[in-house]
Structure formats: structure tokens, C-alpha cells
């Protein structure tokens, strides 16, 4: 085993081809290890943030709000209230005497100023400690202002991102079922777990429209409160991402009987399969939908494939490392890299489950390293050992890759380029190409050294 791995973390790392697969995951982060993980609040914020006509008030000291100010490229076609950062900015006296009054006053002030369609109030760590009754403040403000004011129980220390997703889903569930559902087509669905980064949800909605399907609610990219209120009128929930909105789908199934299917919009197969699965669901009602879906896929592919081939010529044989938030993304990325002729040699996630990792292990090549909740030291050791040409991760991983002279692709919530859908695959290829093929690596110290087993930088 790699010496960069703390002993207590040995069972959170696995190498394909070395013994039985077993992986410990979903543990609390280890004290003193620099985890790439965030908190419950972060999880809730990520999920609810793109709802563009809601007020998002962070109840707590300033940091938690200011670090999430407009941090993601979740686009809106209309209101942009979500791009502002609102906080109660608790001060010492609030911590001592309680923050309820301040919360009520802040809510009142902000609701009057912005007339949002709903307000979400996020509890941060401190609020969990000082014991504010956020629920009752919200109830009161809701009655006073005539809009839903919804508490999100996202005290940071009460777990990790995953608990935050659940809290966000619970919060949204208070809206679902409260709206008027007349006029919704029988061929209709909600898109769950897509955040419209760089306009991605618009791409997906475009495909669905061509298939003849109405989208009722975007959950939550380019999201609107009223759409979420009538989401129970849709015939189907299509859930992307294993973590973030699955709870909502499960709750809606239980309460409203809305069936759901899983989908992924990253990479060619997954995108096409997702559309076919949706067509399959509706084909009894509208037999023509299958042919229309085939047309969409054929159209898109005939445009995409020749262009992709250009990039593949250069990228064939290069080696990639993936470290992302949810494991679902890793599956799609492995396949996407294969289309570019590339090999994934390291893959990991912050919040994968046992099943996620088993599935990863089953599609990964021998020799691939799989890690759960990793840290910079570990990641850098594996990058080096595996001779990686490109690292795919979030903004916190970028400097590690660059410091070692390795290419990088931002595949996280902050990306500014659409990577979903068929056209997203092309963007992805361009992204990968623009970093792997750059001439700058030859000036870095890694170049010319015998980098482990990789195809990585070498003198030619």
C-alpha cells in the first residue's frame, strides 16, 4: 500500500486486481486529515441554491454565507435572487442571547425588499448549538408574509454533504403538492438532480421537447418555486446523481405515487440510454416516441462523432484520474474517457456508497486505484505513481494537479462550460484536449522523468 495513506484509511483505498473488493466508506472524516469534504450545510446549499426566485437566508455567522456567494454557475432564465448571499451575520450577543429576533427581523426585511416566492432558512452549526427555534420563526414569518418560509436543518456538524442533501429534499417536500396541477400533459416529467450549470438543463430540456415531453419542474437548475409546488402533477421523476435528490424522488413516490427512473447526462451512452429509458416509460401512451427519440440521438451523434474523432487522434492512450463529489459522475466519466481512447487509472469520490464502489470496481480496468474521501497528499502520491496526464476534479483539486505539472479538467459545480448532453461531450473533449495537449508540461520538472507506468509527460 502507498505510504501516503494514513493507516486508518487503508480500507478506504482499493486497487483493482488485488484481492477481494472491500471498501469502508461513508465514515466521518478523520480529525486532522485534510478532507476535501464539506458539511451538511454545503450539501443543502448545493441542492437548493439554483432555485432562482427563492430567498436563501443563511442563519449563522458570516463565513458560511460569504463562502457560498454566487459560487456556482447555476444559470437562471429569469430571476437571479439565488446569486445573492444573505446572512443573519450572528454577533457575539446573538450567540449569547439567541438569534431568533434577528432572524425574524432579517427575514421580514429581505422578504419585503425582494418579494421572493418562498424563503429557505439554512441553519448552520452555531444555530444548532444556541438552540434557536427556527421552525417557529419560519412559521410566524410565513403567516405574516404569505409565502412559504421553510427551515432547512443543515447544521454543519450533524454529518456530511449527504445529510445536507436529505435536509434539502425534506425542505422541498414541503412545497411539492401545494400547487395547481391542471393542464399538465400526461407525457410529462420532472428533472431531478440537475443544477443547470452553464445551461446544461436547457440542453436536456431541448432533447425532451423534441421527444414531445413536457418538463414540469427543474429540480433545481433554473428552478422556480411554483414549478416545484406542482411537481407532483408530472407523470415521472427522472433522477440524476445518486445522492442529491434521490430522497425527494423516494418521498414523492411514497406520497404521490410518482415513479422514478435514474439517469445520467454525461457521456454518449449514458445520455442516449437515459433518453431511451424515458421513451420506454412513455411508449404505451405514445408509441411514436421511440422513433422520435431515435431521431434525436441519431441527429446528435451524426454531428458529434466526426468532431470527436479529431480529438481522439491526439488523446489515444493518455491516462486520466477522477476525483469527484458523487460516484455516479465517475461512472459516466470512465465511459466518456473511453470514447476519447483514454484510460482511467485512478478514481475516487467524496461520498460514494458501498454499492457505488462495487459498481466502479466492476467497470474499472485492472490496476485502477479506487479511493473514498481522499486528501491532497494521498491524491498526489497516486497521481505520480499512476503517471496521470489529466486530473478531473473540483476547484480544490486543481492546484494539486497543476503543482505537479498535470493537466486538469474542472468537473464540479463551478464549471462554466456545459458538459452534459451530446454537445457537452464535445465540450468535454475540447476541455480535455486543451489541457492534455498544451505545450507547457515540457517545462515542468516531471517531464522527461520516468513517470511510473504512465504514458505521462516524457521526452520524445
Amino acid at each position, binding site marked *: 500500500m502507498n505510504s501516503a495513506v494514513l493507516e486508518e484509511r487503508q480500507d478506504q483505498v482499493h486497487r483493482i486486481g488485488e484481492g477481494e473488493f472491500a471498501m469502508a466508506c461513508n465514515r466521518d472524516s478523520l480529525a486532522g486529515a*485534510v478532507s476535501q469534504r464539506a458539511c451538511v*450545510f454545503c450539501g443543502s446549499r448545493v441542492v437548493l441554491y439554483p432555485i432562482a426566485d427563492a430567498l436563501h437566508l443563511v442563519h449563522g455567522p458570516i463565513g458560511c454565507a460569504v463562502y457560498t456567494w454566487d*459560487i456556482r454557475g447555476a444559470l437562471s432564465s429569469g430571476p437571479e435572487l439565488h446569486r*445573492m448571499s444573505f446572512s443573519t451575520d450572528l*454577533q457575539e450577543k446573538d450567540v449569547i442571547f439567541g438569534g431568533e429576533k434577528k432572524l425574524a427581523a432579517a427575514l421580514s426585511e429581505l422578504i419585503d425588499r425582494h418579494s421572493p416566492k418562498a424563503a429557505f432558512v439554512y441553519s448552520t452549526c452555531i444555530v444548532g448549538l444556541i438552540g434557536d427555534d427556527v421552525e417557529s420563526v419560519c412559521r410566524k414569518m410565513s403567516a405574516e408574509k404569505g409565502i412559504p418560509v421553510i427551515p432547512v436543518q443543515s447544521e454543519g456538524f450533524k454529518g456530511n454533504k449527504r445529510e445536507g442533501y436529505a435536509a434539502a429534499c425534506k425542505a422541498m417536500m414541503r412545497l411539492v403538492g401545494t400547487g395547481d396541477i391542471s393542464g399538465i400533459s400526461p407525457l410529462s416529467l420532472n428533472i431531478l438532480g440537475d443544477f443547470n450549470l452553464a445551461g446544461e438543463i436547457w440542453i436536456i430540456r431541448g432533447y425532451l421537447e423534441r421527444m414531445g415531453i413536457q418538463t414540469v419542474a427543474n429540480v433545481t437548475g433554473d428552478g422556480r418555486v411554483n414549478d416545484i409546488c406542482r411537481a407532483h402533477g408530472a407523470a415521472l421523476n427522472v433522477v440524476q446523481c445518486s445522492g442529491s435528490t434521490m430522497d425527494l424522488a423516494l418521498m414523492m413516490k411514497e406520497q404521490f405515487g410518482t415513479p422514478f427512473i435514474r439517469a445520467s447526462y454525461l457521456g454518449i451512452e449514458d445520455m442516449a440510454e437515459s433518453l431511451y429509458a424515458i421513451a420506454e416509460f412513455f411508449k404505451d401512451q405514445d408509441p411514436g416516441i421511440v422513433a422520435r427519440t431515435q431521431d434525436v440521438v441519431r441527429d446528435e451523434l451524426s454531428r458529434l462523432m466526426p468532431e470527436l474523432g479529431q480529438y481522439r487522434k491526439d488523446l489515444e492512450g493518455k491516462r486520466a484520474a477522477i476525483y469527484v463529489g458523487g460516484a455516479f459522475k465517475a461512472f459516466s466519466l470512465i465511459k466518456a474517457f473511453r470514447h476519447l481512447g483514454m484510460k482511467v487509472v485512478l478514481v475516487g469520490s467524496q461520498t460514494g456508497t458501498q454499492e457505488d464502489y462495487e459498481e466502479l470496481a466492476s467497470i474499472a480496468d485492472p490496476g485502477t486505484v479506487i479511493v473514498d474521501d481522499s486528501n491532497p497528499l494521498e491524491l498526489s502520491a497516486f497521481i505520480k505513481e499512476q503517471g496521470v496526464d489529466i486530473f478531473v476534479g473540483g476547484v480544490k483539486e486543481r492546484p494539486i494537479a497543476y503543482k505537479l505539472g498535470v493537466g486538469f479538467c474542472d468537473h464540479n459545480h463551478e464549471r462554466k462550460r456545459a458538459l452534459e448532453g451530446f454537445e457537452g461531450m464535445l465540450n468535454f473533449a475540447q476541455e480535455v484536449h486543451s489541457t492534455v495537449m498544451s505545450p507547457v508540461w515540457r517545462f515542468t520538472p516531471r517531464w522527461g522523468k520516468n513517470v511510473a507506468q504512465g504514458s505521462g509527460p516524457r521526452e520524445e
Partner: protein
Amino acid sequence: MESSNYVSTTNACKLCTPLGASLAFRGIEDCVPFLHGSQGCATYMRRYIISHFREPMDIASSALGEKQAVFGGGPNLKKGLLNVMKKYGAKVVGVATTCLTETIGDDVPSILDEFRKEFADLPLPAIVHAATPSYSGTHADGWREAMRATVDALVVDQVEANGTVNIFPSLISCEDTRHLKDIFTSYGVKATILPDLSETLDGPVLEDYRPIPSGGTPLSAIRAMSGARASIELGRTLAGLPTAGRVLADRFAIPRHSLGLPIGLRETDALCKVLEELSGREMPREMQLERGRLVDALVDGHKYIFGKRAVVYGEEDLVIGLVSFLSEIGVRPVLAATGGKGKAFGRAIEAVTRDILPEPCRAVEGVDFHDIAEQAQELAPDLMVGHSKGYSYAKEWNVPLVRVGFPIHDRFGGQRTLHVGYRGAQTMLDRVINAVLDKTQTDNPIGYGYL
């Protein structure tokens, strides 16, 4: 002092206290910044810092969960320290508390004492503890407190006089630190600057990842501060606050010079004057030339910017320096705003503008961007000077934003922005004038080729 009229905070113009402390701890050699609190805070701050510096920024965390929040974070803190020792081989660990641990009332000094006793058989790092709850203070306070605590904890023995000068700047860029060092060297002054981010957050590309980046103020140099002949603190609000310089003055009677951040002509002159006294040397010719070129440029450029109305915002000491500089070049700072409060901000703004501005510059503290925007509406600014978070407002008002300070998240090279010294003033003058010219040219249908 004017302040905000609202209860809620919208788009804050400050960051939280432990972020400042973590940044400052990053400027000590072989030091790992360590947040005692829950995991989320550390992760958010790392992300925020990395987006500016584009460098690795590890911040360890005691990663408290629900149990520890109830029963106390001591065991996690100890365990975290051991892990940091093992993985990083740190010589110094800078422990900053967070809102969580301050609220549950963890007694960090006693926990650390216990830790030192419990593991006395191990080669322990120096552990510094800074109390940094965000519900009182901002990142500027965190920075200052981290350095005060460092000196308080590490400079305990009187060493022999060594003729050095201790320098304690408020938050400045990596490039600023490099330039300051050059200035001291050119005067022949041996200086220990704390903290020193010049290499730790702006280092070369590597073959092997270093758990802790090279650079930073060495522990030995910090310990030797008791033998210095003087301390210079750079930042006008520091004079009235508990600082590292004050600890050294109280404990070792080291004379303490309180200056502003050397931004612009007059504040740099003030620094040079002290350096002349300390070194017994005249201003080196190279600097004289820089100063001369700067004044020459002020003359060449004055008309482009005369009377332009500027809104300036950010940390207190930076804003004071910028306002001083802008007043010198003929720009009219109409609003000086900061998210911090309770310091001598208004008085300092008044002091640097009194004899040069025709009308006083409005100074406001404890404000957010909503307050700034509201005031700016009536002030009709021509430009904004501050960090990148003012961008959406500059865009809305269609005025140029000259990006300075921290953070700069939407441009390249924030860590290499030079603000201090005559050279820094020269760079900023060029940038301010070019921002105005750029706007003139863009707005003008004729498209003048000479401006």
C-alpha cells in the same frame, strides 16, 4: 462613524475570522493551519483561498461531529494534532478556533497543555492557539490575532541583540511581501517579516508534492524577535489594537513603529523615513529613481483622472492606504467602506485625506454591499477600487473595477498584484488611468487611436 441601517447582511464585505488566521499561519515556515471546529468551515475556506492564489492550501480540521459538539472537542483536537504531525511533519501548528468551538466553550489552552504532557515523549511541534470566533471580528482580525498569538506563544526568551527589525504587515499580497523585502535589503536593514506568504502561496511547480510548501517565516527567526532593535507594524488600525508588536514592546521593550500600509507616495515616504533612521542611510538611488519616476508619472497622467469619483472597499488598512493613494493622484474617493468595525477607521481615513481632499471622504464601517450600493447610488462613482466581489455592482453601474487586495476570483495573478512601495503606486497608477482610458475608448463611437 456611519454604519449599516439594516439587520440582514447581503453580499458581505468581509470574511470570517479563522480565514484570516489560516492565511497568516500559512506564512510561517513548516506550519500547518488547523481549524478547531467542524469540517465544513475548513473546506470552504480552502476553496476560497485557492481560487485566489491558485496554489494548494491545506487547512486541517478537528472535524467535530454531533457528539463532540455536545461533549467537547478535546479528543478530536488531540487526535487531529497527532495526525497532522504524522502526515505533515509540521514544526508549527497554528490552531484557530471557529464559531462552533468558541460557542461550546472548549478550553483550548488547557487541551493543548494536556496534549503536550500526554505526548511529551514525542517530538512535538510548536503549537500556537488563536481565538478566532467569527461572530466577533473579520478576517483582518483573524490575521492580526494569529500573529499576535504566534509571537505571544513563541517569543518567550530574551535573545541577544541581533540588530534585526521585525515587520508585521496587515494582509498584503505575495508580491507585496517580496517587494518589501527588497526595500529592506536595499536599506541594509535585516528584517524578519511575519507572516511571509511570498513563497508559500506563490511557489514554483514541483516534481514531488510537498505536504507543506517551502518558504514562510522560519521558527528560529520568530524566536529571535526578542533580540530585534525595533518592530514596524504596517496598517493604521493596528496602532490601537492588541498586536504582535505590542507583545514585543511589553515583554522585551522593543520600540514599536506604527505606520500605515505603505501604499501611495506619502505612506511609502513614511516607511522610508523610519528606514532611514534605523539604517542611518539615505534612500538608496534605485528607490530615489522609482520615486522620481512615480512623481513624473503622476504629472503625465493627472488630467485623465482628475476629480474621478471612486468607491473604495475592503479591509480597513488596505482601504486607508488606497484612499490615501487615490487622493494623491487627483482621484476623489467618495466612499471608503469596510465590513469590519470598531477600529479607528474613520479617523484614519480623515487623517490621510485631511490636507489633500477638498471635501472629506465618507467613511462607513460594518457595511455590506447592499449598503455600499445604496450609498453609491447618490454618490455616482466613476470607478471602484477593491477586491473582485464588487464586480457585479461595477457591472450594474457600468463603471470600471480596479481589482486589488483579496480575493480576486475573476482575474489571473491576484497573488502577484503589487500595492506597496513607490513601485506599487506606479503599477496602480497605470492601472487606474488605463481603466479610465479603457472606458473612454469603449464608450466612444469615434474610437480614438491616441488618448
